[in-house]
């Protein structure tokens, strides 16, 4: 029996014909990397093949690594297998990977979202036979509002806190979510302060996207100067002594998980904004339909439930275990900042 074009091995998703791995979770020779989050671009690979815009991100995170960059849609051939990268809309520089061999096409999404966030190149559906999709939010309970509405709510919240003489602290991943928030915060309201992890990552991305100015919170920053302003911080900073020094403050988190009342309460956050860099339920379904794929492989997220639903809809769908953390990743609070 002919082995499939892409296989799930203990090191990661493997293309035997090209001897290359996609987002491997153990060190390999040649890795094609969808995006810069820690669970997709791990340490220790000999070569990192990725989109140009992702190179500064993974170089910042992983240090001295060997990288090869490509443009969207640019084809590169390894051992007669045709590869190309296509925008995934997840974060800056995030790609889907298209793999073609003898007319058979597979697409691996990495992480993706359907809405254009204005800073990542927007998601483009790619026709394929087999579609490997994440399904972090693969439940009908997840429905995103247009980002314009959510961001307007966030700015209103900031303004209200300012009126009450309080500092606003907004939690978001230091890579991706933080920049998406930063891009749209209304600097007429006040100054945007950042946690070190976010400041550093944003510095790396400034050459690629224009962002409003930010000020790093340092030891010298006083409570008083923060009052009425907003502080962008990674989720792991919640409850730390770094935050406690900022009283009086109000906290909020921007994440898809904020859909659940329990998720916000569990973390003792004052306010939750539902804003995700992943697809919601409808987003997943419409993307799958747009690829024209017959076979769907569901990776991280509510994969069992989601693939069962797809099978009922007539797809040949199944689940594969991976070590991507779409589900826990965003929830985790104790994770070290550098991993985000």
């Amino acid at each position, binding site marked *: 029996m002919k082995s499939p074009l892409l296989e799930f091995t203990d090191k990661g998703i493997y293309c035997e014909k090209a001897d290359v791995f996609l987002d491997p979770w153990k060190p390999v020779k040649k890795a094609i990397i969808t995006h810069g989050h820690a669970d997709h671009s791990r340490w220790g690979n000999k070569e990192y093949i990725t989109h140009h815009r992702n190179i500064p991100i993974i170089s910042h995170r992983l240090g001295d690594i060997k990288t090869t960059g490509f443009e969207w849609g640019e084809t590169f051939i390894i051992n007669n297998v045709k590869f190309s990268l296509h925008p995934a809309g997840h974060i800056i520089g995030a790609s889907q990977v298209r793999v073609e061999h003898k007319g058979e096409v597979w697409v691996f999404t990495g992480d993706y979202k359907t809405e254009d966030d204005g800073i990542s190149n927007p998601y483009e559906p790619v026709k394929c036979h087999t579609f490997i999709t994440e399904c972090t939010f693969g439940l009908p309970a*997840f429905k995103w509002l247009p980002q314009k509405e959510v961001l307007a709510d966030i700015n209103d919240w900031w303004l209200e806190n300012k009126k009450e003489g309080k500092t606003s602290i907004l939690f978001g991943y230091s890579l991706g979510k933080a920049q998406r928030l930063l891009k749209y915060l209304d600097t007429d309201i006040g100054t945007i302060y950042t946690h070190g992890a976010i400041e550093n990552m944003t510095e790396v991305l400034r050459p690629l996207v224009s962002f409003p100015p930010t000020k790093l919170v340092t030891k010298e920053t006083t409570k008083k100067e923060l009052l009425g302003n907003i502080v962008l911080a990674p989720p792991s900073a919640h409850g730390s002594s770094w935050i406690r020094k900022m009283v009086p403050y109000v906290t909020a988190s921007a994440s898809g998980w904020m859909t659940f009342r329990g998720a916000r*309460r569990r973390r003792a956050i004052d306010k939750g904004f539902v804003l995700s860099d992943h697809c919601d339920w409808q987003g997943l379904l419409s993307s799958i339909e747009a690829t024209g794929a017959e076979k769907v492989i569901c990776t991280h997220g509510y994969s069992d439930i989601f693939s069962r639903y797809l099978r009922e809809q007539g797809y040949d769908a199944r689940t594969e275990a991976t070590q991507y953390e779409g589900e826990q990743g965003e929830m985790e609070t104790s994770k070290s900042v550098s991993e985000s």
Partner: protein
Amino acid sequence: MKRFAQLIKTLDSTNKTTVKVDALTQYFLEAGDTDKVWTIAILSHRRPPRPVNTTLLREWASELANIPLWLFEESYHIVGDLAETIALVVPSLKSSTEKTLTQFLEEMIALKKKSDHDKKQYLFENWKELDYYERFVFTKLITGGFRIGVSQKLMTRALSKATEIDEDILAYKLMGNWDPNTISFQQLVLEEHKSDYLSKPYPFYLAYALEEVPESLGDVNEWSMEHKWDGIRSQVILRNDEIFVWSRGEELVTDKYPEFEQFISFIPNGTVIDGEILPYPKGQIGTFNDLQKRIGRKSVSKSLLTKVPVILKAYDLLEWQGTDIRQKPFSERRQLLEALFETVATTTLSHQKSKTTEQSESGGTQRNRSDLPLQLSETMQFDSWQEVAKERELSREKHSEGLMLKKLDSPYLVGRKKGDWWKWKVDPLTIDAVLTYAMRGHGRRSNLFTDYTFALWDENENGERELVTFAKAYSGLTDAEFRTLDAWIKKNTLERFGPVRSVTPHHVFEIAFEGIALSNRHKSGVATRFPRMLRWRQDKNIHEANSLGDLKALIPNSAKAE
């Protein structure tokens, strides 16, 4: 409704008590009177009966959401709250309602009697027309209680701020049986009505657990000790030739304990006793497990009455000769209580005379009062705290949970207060068990696996060692420990059964519990009372966990009799 939904949203989105009280106070100042009454009713668990059963709610919600029922159920397992799941999955429109909370509740009450077709139509209309949060609140009103971290006490505090009526007086007014449908805000909160107080209990005085050494309480001579009985804390009220039995949960349970009816013949009107309802099979105090057979049954069969009779163990006297005596020192209240017991044992009450005389004349036998299901909880005084500690060691033998320490000069306070009363329980029993199954938690913990099942070693008929489930527990770990375990469970799942996952036997936990008894309703043959995780024994492997035999050895001989 808009205003009420806004209130719930504010209450739900803060963990700060002051913010909650302020939001409630503001609401009580602004909302309409009938809405206020309903809000008080809802926040004190007096919602109207559920108009639609949850099976239908699930079916209809999945129909409106255009998803299969199984997918709705899976979503519900993950979200952890039915109303929230429904509000999330049904299609969203950005409209809002002008109807008041009262209008909605009146509609829901009327809905109960309608046909399924009408019910479905009513739900569809509202689900479609309300915005997300209103839809959640609307569905919550249909499905049940709002668990939003607002205790009755907190609500009472806010109501007191809004009305400038004393908090204790309000707590008293809001107790008991009142119908939000018929009572006005004026009647419920603002007016003073003597006759309304007939069935009304006093708020219970609750003790905190003693965490310091007892010596920290000072002179032992200022304290009275008694055993802490493990039953249902209750108040028995005798007024106007009627008896009312209230449980600590402010539930009127008179009908569940018909054996107390005869108190009317022996205890004078204007008496309120604070005590504990205890199971008393075979003339001795039983286990909580025995009492469980009586709890939750409104009408009690004769055979159950014979099998698990109950008694009232009296602790305190709150009202005597129609006067509230809660401000008198504990020692004086006890003297009155003990005098009352004397009276009951020796004299026949005047208003009861005719009945008894008739009985004797018609040849009936005089009732033996020592058979009354009423006992005094014996108080003790000691010369030293060491002696108190010795008495505490005898608790399990005496079927108690430990000791209650009460200051002799203490008044009867309202709610849980520190200082005058302390409970000093015996140390829990413990056993090391293996984690075998996990389920997602509810509410605050709905996305974490926090509800666990534990097993102990046993030998099967082939002489092989196997793990046998013995208890479930979901409390006792820190948030960080729960997160670590949650991640581990997700990676070490063996099988899934709906919301439940079996996991690789690997982790050992020290499980603590308050009581233990034989049980034929449990697979292990043993029931434990209030099991919880005392600590995560990461130093132990599963083969070092205890056996079912070890657990059974903890059962006191008296509880094995059955």
